């Protein structure tokens, strides 16, 4: 006997709409991935003296070397150690920035840096010494000086076209 088909329409199946979920998940993923994006970095070459292994120290420099000094002085302008001091920028005997001037937001734009770059350029042009790579420059920084200031000194040397830059030994007095 043939069964009679029901005339009632079949109830539609319950479907889960996935599209909004995918959208939300994608947005979250994109957000977290972008958050991890690394800002492109630049580098400044800083070759160390080649002295082999063992107790290698930094290069000994002549009196003729141009020396950028980043000293650490107290408020009275005397050399000090440890916290509480201030950086002082000197090129040879010339003071380019006094204690306390290389602090805060104005440290990067202090006129001493421009002066340093200008003097280094002059010295490079005048150099007639034996070094084939041009005027040798030594950056002599006290251990307490923030790295930002040392990098700025190196930056000015690079800007002035100096190719022979070395760092003085930490314990070497000057």
């Amino acid at each position, binding site marked *: 006997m043939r069964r009679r088909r029901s005339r009632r329409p079949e109830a539609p199946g319950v479907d889960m709409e996935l599209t909004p979920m995918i959208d939300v998940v994608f947005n979250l993923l994109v957000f977290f991935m972008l958050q991890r994006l690394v800002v492109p970095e630049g580098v400044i070459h800083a070759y160390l003296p080649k002295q082999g292994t063992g107790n290698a120290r930094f290069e000994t420099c002549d009196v003729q070397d141009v020396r950028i000094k980043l000293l650490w002085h107290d408020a009275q302008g005397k050399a000090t150690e440890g916290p509480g001091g201030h950086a002082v920028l000197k090129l040879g005997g010339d003071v380019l920035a006094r204690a306390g001037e290389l602090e805060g937001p104005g440290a990067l734009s202090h006129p001493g840096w421009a002066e340093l770059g200008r003097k280094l350029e002059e010295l490079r042009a005048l150099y007639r010494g034996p070094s084939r790579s041009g005027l040798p420059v030594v950056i002599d920084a006290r251990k307490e000086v923030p790295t930002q200031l040392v990098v700025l000194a*190196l930056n000015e040397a690079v800007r002035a076209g100096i190719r022979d830059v070395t760092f003085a030994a930490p314990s070497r007095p000057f």
Partner: protein
Amino acid sequence: MRRSRVEDLPEPRRDLTPMIDVVFLLIVFFMVATELTNLELEELALPRADQAREPAPELGQVPPLVINVLEDGEVRVRGRRLTSDPARRGQAPWFSDHLRTEVAVAGREDDASRLEVTLRVDKDAEFGAVQRVFEACCEHGVIKTRLAADPSGER
């Protein structure tokens, strides 16, 4: 009137599940890959230097060893905490020992000067910490060093 048989056929549906699976796997892959790359680069504020240039890749060049120096002077290489400060010796593995291993593992004992080091230093870190890293590099014959800097810096 009889209904057409075509109308009785179920409406075709696209099954999105495999696509979602594949997309998720791709995303997980890229996230893990990104995470591993970032393991070398610690989060620190680089010093500004407008003369810094993006390093030009050289043919056959071995990727440089990235050494991070945090604000407090702590040294980190591939996420591993090290120290170069004699006052903290014993609290963390000694950096110089680690560098010796790096040079040996890379097979550059014969010519360590080929090993290039990129030094990423926090701008507020004391330069003494950098000097100690430089000394260790010199000790093991590593002379090619580069200081990472933020080139967006103003003069």
